């Protein structure tokens, strides 16, 4: 719950920063999809690997990346996790196993597969997770990587965040099949669909997949059924999208579902949930305030970091 709240609050502040003009480029928020990264990453260790998407802030936060460094990155500041060279679509944090959010749809999938291959060759029990959207399942990189992971029994979990839209193109116009998890059978690996707005359900399904991967059982395709709450990016009025679907996305909000679950089962009281909101909000407000104060990099730092050796 705390992780999901952290993601949500991060994105709310990012929207504010973006609307103030303090952030360049484009902003794709993870709002409404938090249960997926939170549920999956709760099964991971710090030394496990993930590759994210262009909607990647949530994956970083779930993997333990510091919000201050991420917010500073969004604002192009020198304290940014990528020293201002990556921005919103490319937040990277290798210390916490984030091998990169990625601006190119589907391209992180082979990279996670390679991290899993590396774990296998090195003889560790690390696992890798590739997060990607339903749109990415139409790319060659998805098919090549799933096949490769299957033939070599690699410890990788392919997590499809099926939000039904690739910008403005609905899923039914880009693929004939209803259930994307059936694609797993083409490669000889298990596939499953799970309610991607229910963090507990995601956690349980991912737990099985992670255990399978870690114990040498090979890869799994996990399709997390969800909906995007906002547009593809901030400023997208979503005129292509049925109004009732947007309303439905808000109804099935993963944080609402989790709150109900926690209070309903007596794990937390309403007051405790309220206090948690306050705690996370304070933490995020502090991160944003610090990021706002961070300086811009010197222009000539644009020439650093190309190679590890001076040439």
């Amino acid at each position: 719950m705390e992780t999901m709240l952290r993601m949500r609050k991060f994105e709310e502040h990012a929207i504010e920063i973006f609307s103030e003009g303090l952030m360049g480029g484009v902003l794709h928020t993870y709002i409404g999809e938090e249960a997926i990264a939170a549920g999956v990453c709760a099964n991971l260790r710090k030394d496990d690997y993930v590759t994210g998407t262009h909607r990647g802030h949530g994956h970083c936060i779930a993997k333990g990346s510091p919000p201050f460094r991420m917010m500073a990155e969004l604002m192009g500041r020198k304290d940014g996790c990528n020293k201002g060279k990556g921005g919103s679509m490319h937040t990277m944090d290798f210390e916490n196993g984030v091998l990169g959010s990625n601006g190119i749809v589907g391209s992180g999938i082979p990279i996670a597969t390679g991290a899993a291959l590396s774990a296998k060759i090195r003889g560790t029990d690390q696992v890798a997770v590739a997060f990607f959207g339903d749109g990415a399942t139409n790319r060659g990189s998805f098919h090549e990587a799933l096949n490769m992971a299957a033939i070599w029994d690699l410890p990788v979990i392919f997590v499809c965040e099926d939000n039904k839209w690739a910008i403005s193109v609905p899923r039914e116009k880009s693929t004939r099949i209803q259930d994307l998890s059936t694609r797993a059978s083409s490669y000889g690996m298990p596939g499953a669909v799970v309610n991607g707005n229910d963090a507990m359900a995601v956690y349980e399904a991912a737990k099985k997949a992670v255990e399978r991967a870690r114990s040498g059982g090979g890869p799994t395709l996990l399709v997390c059924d969800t909906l995007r709450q906002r547009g593809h990016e901030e400023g997208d009025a979503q005129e292509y999208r049925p109004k009732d679907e947007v309303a439905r996305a808000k109804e099935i909000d993963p944080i609402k579902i989790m709150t109900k679950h926690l209070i309903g089962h007596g794990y937390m009281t309403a007051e405790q949930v309220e206090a948690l909101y306050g705690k996370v909000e304070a933490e995020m407000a502090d991160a944003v305030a610090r990021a706002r104060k961070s300086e811009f990099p010197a222009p000539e730092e644009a020439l650093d970091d190309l190679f590890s050796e001076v040439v």
Partner: protein
Amino acid sequence: MREITYAEALTEALREEMRRDKAVFCLGEDIGRIGGNFGITKGLQKEFGEDRVRDTPISEDAIVGASLGAALTGLRPVPEIMFSSFLGCCWEQIWNQVSKVRYMSGGQVKVPMVIRTVNAIGRSTAAQHNERPEAMLMHMPGLKVVAPATPYDAKGLLKAAIRSDDPVIFFEQCFLYYTVKGEVPEGDYTVPIGKADIKRKGSDLTIATYSNMVHKSMQAAAVLSKEDGVEAEVIDMRTLSPMDMDTVLESVKKTGRLIVATDDCRRGSTGAEIAAEVAEKGFDYLDAPVVRVATMDVPTPFSKPMENYIIPTPEKIVAAARAMLEG
């Protein structure tokens, strides 16, 4: 010293590096049992096992992407892309991922991987197995691009590439594999990435070149010396990115004339880059305009007379030199 082929030199470099460092591993299409299409990895699977000399499916995008994932997590992959034409299938990974990840991350990571691939021209294999795309790779900041011409350089540069913490695109040349022999020390040595080599000293004319064209340039230089009394200095660039322009400029300062001989297509070529650098930094040294001898700007035709017509040859270099010296 013993003489071995360009192919043997490459195999030896791979074997020695794999013995030296457990993190080095090879992957690619058909590299295991048959040692790759040109036999460069022959015998390595037997010595190092299927884990470290790994046959892959025909999935260039995943071969390069998985290599990147492995490079980011502690290994030193050496993927083989069977022909450089097939780089088109993994362009995305090379262009947007491999070349950019270190820079975009603000220097958080090292990317120690070497993509070995094969250039060709003049094999009657038409346009899809007959490509020289190095200028396009050279145009991607974040990659090192290497193209050795001799067995000595092939071994030393491949070892240096494998030990480099940055991504290297390593262009081999299928014509050189089994036709070129040369002296190669047994055991360990490296040739530094980013340093050109003067393969022939001369005072009248500079020929800047690399890979296959080094040998054609040496033939042209021999003809010019014998028939015209003209001594050409032949510079083997060896590394295309970063490029050692100091050696070229030093030479042009002495000779006043420059021919750039490359077998990539002329427009937007490696030769164009060398010519532009000399125009910017060495204009005052020049006694004549720089001339490019390169492949004509068409895809490679299949039929032999047409193919021979479009490719750069020693005769074309000699003709260019004579025209330049007369003019």
